[in-house]
């Protein structure tokens, strides 16, 4: 998702739009961290189990040739969201966003895919193909399933645990450490980018011309880049001062609990039957 270009809804103020986008991201992540500390079903499972289960469900939905199976997995996701007390309002914007995005891409396929005619649109004479409807439904449903699971994972697991859990799927430790550091820097930089834009916003009267806006964006990116390098040097010094020698260690405190022991066979059964019915 996330196209490279779109008509801004709030056109006219480039600075405000960017500030909004930056602070929205900040808020969303802080909110996810809050939810991850809640006491729902998924919050009680081992992050490794959750990550592997998510990959299993996603593979199942991607491999299935059967619309009902994909819909079934969507129901599983929905049920998990309810049992994990994820508020509807935090999922609905994600669903609508994906629906609009995938809907626009999949919509024309309803008419364009060759296949038996299901209906004809009056006046326009466009023929709705049944294969097209199925393809579009598969595309939309699969992308919704995927985004729901990734939101569920992030909203029920502290990010640091998500990253550590990635090691079970073969992500090297160094990459996990870089991911972790990156995630932290993102917030630092979101803050400094946001500050820069706000500082500029408070000094602008009237509307900024597009040329000025582009110049402003380049300058902000440039400053951010300089700051990034400064930061990386500072961090490197700090790491050296603590005796860093190029080896990374992470604490491995994950342990399967009784909840996981119950959950693992259940998850396996759902995924196995999904794959079985999806391929026949």
């Amino acid at each position, binding site marked *: *998702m*996330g*196209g*490279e*270009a779109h008509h*801004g809804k709030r*056109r006219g103020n*480039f600075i405000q*739009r*960017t500030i909004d*986008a930056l602070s929205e*991201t900040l808020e969303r992540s802080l909110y996810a961290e809050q939810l991850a500390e809640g006491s729902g079903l998924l919050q009680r499972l081992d992050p490794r189990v959750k990550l592997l289960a*998510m*990959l299993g469900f*996603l593979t199942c939905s*991607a491999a299935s040739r059967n619309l009902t199976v994909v819909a079934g997995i969507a129901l599983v996701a929905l049920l998990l969201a309810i049992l994990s007390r994820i508020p509807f309002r935090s999922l609905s914007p994600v669903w609508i966003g*994906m629906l609009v*995005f*995938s809907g626009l*891409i999949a*919509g024309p*396929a309803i008419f*364009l*895919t060759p*296949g038996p005619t299901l209906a004809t649109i009056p006046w326009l004479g466009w023929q709705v193909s049944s*294969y*097209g409807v*199925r*393809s579009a439904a598969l*595309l*939309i449903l*699969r*992308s919704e399933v995927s985004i729901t699971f990734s939101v569920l994972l*992030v909203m029920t697991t502290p990010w640091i645990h*998500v990253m550590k859990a990635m090691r079970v799927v073969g992500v090297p430790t*160094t990459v996990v450490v*870089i*991911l972790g*550091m*990156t995630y932290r*820097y*993102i917030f*630092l*930089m979101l803050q400094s*980018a946001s500050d820069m834009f706000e500082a500029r916003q408070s000094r602008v009267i009237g509307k900024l011309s597009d040329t000025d*806006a*582009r110049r402003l*964006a*380049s300058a*902000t*990116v*440039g400053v*951010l*880049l300089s700051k990034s*390098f400064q930061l*990386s040097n500072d*961090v*490197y010094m700090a*790491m050296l001062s603590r005796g*860093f020698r190029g080896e990374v260690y992470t604490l491995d405190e994950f342990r399967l609990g009784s909840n996981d022991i119950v959950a693992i066979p259940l998850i396996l059964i759902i995924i196995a039957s999904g794959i079985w019915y999806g391929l026949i």
Partner: protein
Amino acid sequence: MHIPDGYLSPSTCVAMFAASTPFWYVASARIKKTLSMRMVPLLSVFAAFSFIIMMFNLPLPGGTTGHATGAALAAIVLGPWAAVISVSIALIIQAVFFGDGGILAIGANCFTIAIVGVFVAHYANRIVAGNSAVDSSRRVIAAGIAGYLSINAAAFATAVLFGIQPMYFTDSNGAPLYAPYPLDIAVPAMMIGHIGIAGFAELIVTAGVIAYLQKNDISLLSIAQTGVPAGAHAAVASGWQGARRMWLVIATLLVMTPLGLIAAGTAWGEWGAEELVELDGGQTITAAPTGLLQYAAIWQAPVPDYAVSFISSEQLGYILSGVMGVGLIILTMLVSTYIAARITRRNEQSNP
């Protein structure tokens, strides 16, 4: 655009992970060898940086807005191998934590943006910039061109991935299971948006930042050439030599692809332009990557009915020659760098 899950078949996703792995492997081996410790914070910081600049909505000529991916900038400032790693990391974080791009599609997104995008930017920049001074305006132009080509190459790779889905992955009735549009719709739909709009976002950011750095922080521009932070030089300068064998394999595969595609691509003529022509106008899709149909209609509208099969096969021809062309370019570069290296060595031997 970032490919969401559901658009690519699981086997395509696996293949794209497999295609990305040698690049990740070479990149990390290279970084480990030459930059070791200092690179850990540098990569993290740059990954965070490319994540952030994807959020800057800049106004483009023509009244739309767009954002850059930062892949070209990373390639120019950090050198290609470090850029592969940091842009990949940014993409993984986007997919896992922000739902931008699919989880199973991470391999595909990394391949198109962090590998194709980065290397196209790197070579475009190197070819256009030549031996010009670091603070010359030619460098700014090179950066802009690199940015523009980089995002368009990434978009083209994405469009090809979309376009081959209905060729290979259909149910027993022939209905597509994943991205439903064949190459002759997917490629023009994607490319018009990127050639016309998104490419300029990347161009403006890449050229703008390079110009800014030339004026205000020129030391950053020599990271890829002179090794500040210490050691970066080796990784970048030897980017070609160490991975030569891998490139050779890739180039050979690319040159050979048409054989496989032609064998499998017979069901193509079924997709007509007639249905498309009926659909032009009436569409109010505005976003470039999502405006598939609108652009497809523009592309197809002038085509007379009888030309359908001809156009389809011509499209296929373009793509095949594009893929082959890339393979040939890589092969040519391999051969020419090899010859250049031999000549330099001989000169060094004759005048010590």
